């Protein structure tokens, strides 16, 4: 038991990014799960008599709305808390799907040279040459706004980042002796791709995954800001959009969700770094 405790302490001391980032991420998950109990108000409930109430540290605040209210008198804290749900959904679904697509295409592209690699390479370039937001807006224009459109937009942009990095890694790895050794042992392509190469790119893929989750939050916020995300549930981007028109009267409406986004994205990139360090056996020394 004490051995476990010392190794845990060692890990916290040598890899604080993992633990800080992981804690914040875990907190977001917990808040999303416990939203009905944590939020003091219905996030959609309007109270037109208490519009633009300031947060608790400013004068004239109302203790029942700790972070103030927006232009329709809705409780911002409750909206931020409920907002973690769509954010989490978009983060996880967007990063998972773009990760799976990008890793498979990157592996295949890097391992098999020739026309397949060329085709995937061109595809990556085409997708990357589009301004990502334009791509997302075009997509939403076709499918209509909503969370699934946001996820699709994230995947459409995100897979290229995975594919490009993984392809580069595989190009280096496949020339190494252990891949030759695997071929000489009579292993087939599928086995080499998934049993030999995949474990080697797993640390970097996981780090990219955590980074992609952070990017997903930003994409969602931007799409929500221009009204292309879900409108029936509160999202962080949606709160920013609502607060924009009143930024001179009630700056906190717009600022608070921005702070939430910044903290989450920062935490996720720390988590990404820490994760890579923790998983890669070569870096554990």
């Amino acid at each position, binding site marked *: 038991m004490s051995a476990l405790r010392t190794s845990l302490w060692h890990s916290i001391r040598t890899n604080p990014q993992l633990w800080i980032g992981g804690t914040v991420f875990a907190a977001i998950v917990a808040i999303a799960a416990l939203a009905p109990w944590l939020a003091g108000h219905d996030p959609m409930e309007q109270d037109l008599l208490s519009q633009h109430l300031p947060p608790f540290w400013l004068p004239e605040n109302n203790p029942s709305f700790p972070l103030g209210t927006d232009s329709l008198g809705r409780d911002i804290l409750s909206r931020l808390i409920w907002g973690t749900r769509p954010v989490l959904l978009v983060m996880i679904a967007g990063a998972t799907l773009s990760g799976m697509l990008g890793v498979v295409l990157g592996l295949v592209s890097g391992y098999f040279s020739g026309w397949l690699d060329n085709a995937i390479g061109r595809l990556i370039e085409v997708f990357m040459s589009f301004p990502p937001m334009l791509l997302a807006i075009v997509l939403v224009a076709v499918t209509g706004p909503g969370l699934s459109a946001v996820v699709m937009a994230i995947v459409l942009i995100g897979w290229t980042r995975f594919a490009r990095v993984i392809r580069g890694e595989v190009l280096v790895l496949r020339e190494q002796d252990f891949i030759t*050794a695997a071929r*000489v042992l*009579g292993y087939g392509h599928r086995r080499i791709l998934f049993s*030999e190469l995949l474990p080697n790119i797993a640390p970097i893929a996981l780090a990219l995954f955590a980074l992609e989750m952070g990017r997903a939050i930003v994409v969602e916020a931007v799409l929500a800001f221009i009204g292309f995300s879900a409108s029936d549930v509160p999202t962080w981007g949606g709160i920013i959009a609502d607060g924009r028109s009143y930024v001179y009267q009630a700056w906190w409406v717009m600022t608070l969700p921005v702070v939430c986004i910044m903290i989450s994205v920062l935490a996720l990139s720390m988590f990404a770094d820490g994760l890579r360090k923790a998983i890669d056996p070569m870096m554990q020394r």
Partner: protein
Amino acid sequence: MTVLDIQDLHVAFTQRGRVTPVLRGVNLTIEPGRICGLVGESGGGKTMVGKAITGILPEDARITAGRILFKGRNLIGLPEKERRQLLGRSIAMILQQPTTALNPILRIETQILEVLQRQMGLAHQAARARALELLDTVQIRAPERVLRQYPHELSGGMCQRVVIAIAFSCQPALIIADEPTTALDVTVQFEILRLIKILQRDFGTAVLFITHDLGVVANLCDRVSVIFGGSIIEEGQTTDIFTAPKHPYTSALMAASPRHDQPEKGLHPVPAEIVSQLWREIEEHDRARSA
């Protein structure tokens, strides 16, 4: 029955439409349970022979002529599936760099068990028991611990023992050892060579030992083939070759080996006349073939 019979093997590189031959009619035979040395200087094509046998030639290299008979079966043009069944099980290979020949991110256990389960069809428990046995055979003192370790936690010599264990795991008929001790220091080199000798004798495995080190050949091999410019210029019993080399290049190569017991003799590079004479012959041969 002859394990390996290479007949008139030609391999050429094609780069930007230009064809450069690297093997120019290699002939080589290995009898069961024998060690055959393939010696030559860098660039002589010795590694290409090993790569051609196992089908891992670089993408721009191609076998242009000849046959590689493994137990009477031509490996050239063999369907991919049949070739993969032979590799690992009947033909294995030991590579030069032991530290990179193992997958850096998988435990030794995963890597040995994979071969045993896939090629020998053993169940997990049986494969694990066999893996421990194999590690014991290659004289690894704490096999249980080594199984749990990653390649970077092992020394080069230990890695090469693991690689050897994997190569011998299916008791193949033929092992191709491509400079297996070149990357190791001298004391480890000796142990690894002895290990290969013991295992090949116990398992009755034929070995094609590719090296530039004549001292290793003299101690290990039954027969020797000397390769230069992609063709075998001399072949015979090790003792015959070393006592009475027929080709002037072979004697020059032997004279060029530094002798630690006779430092006063100094260093003797292979005389330029011999090399340029050989290249003239090769160029003539190339011209004759392409004409």
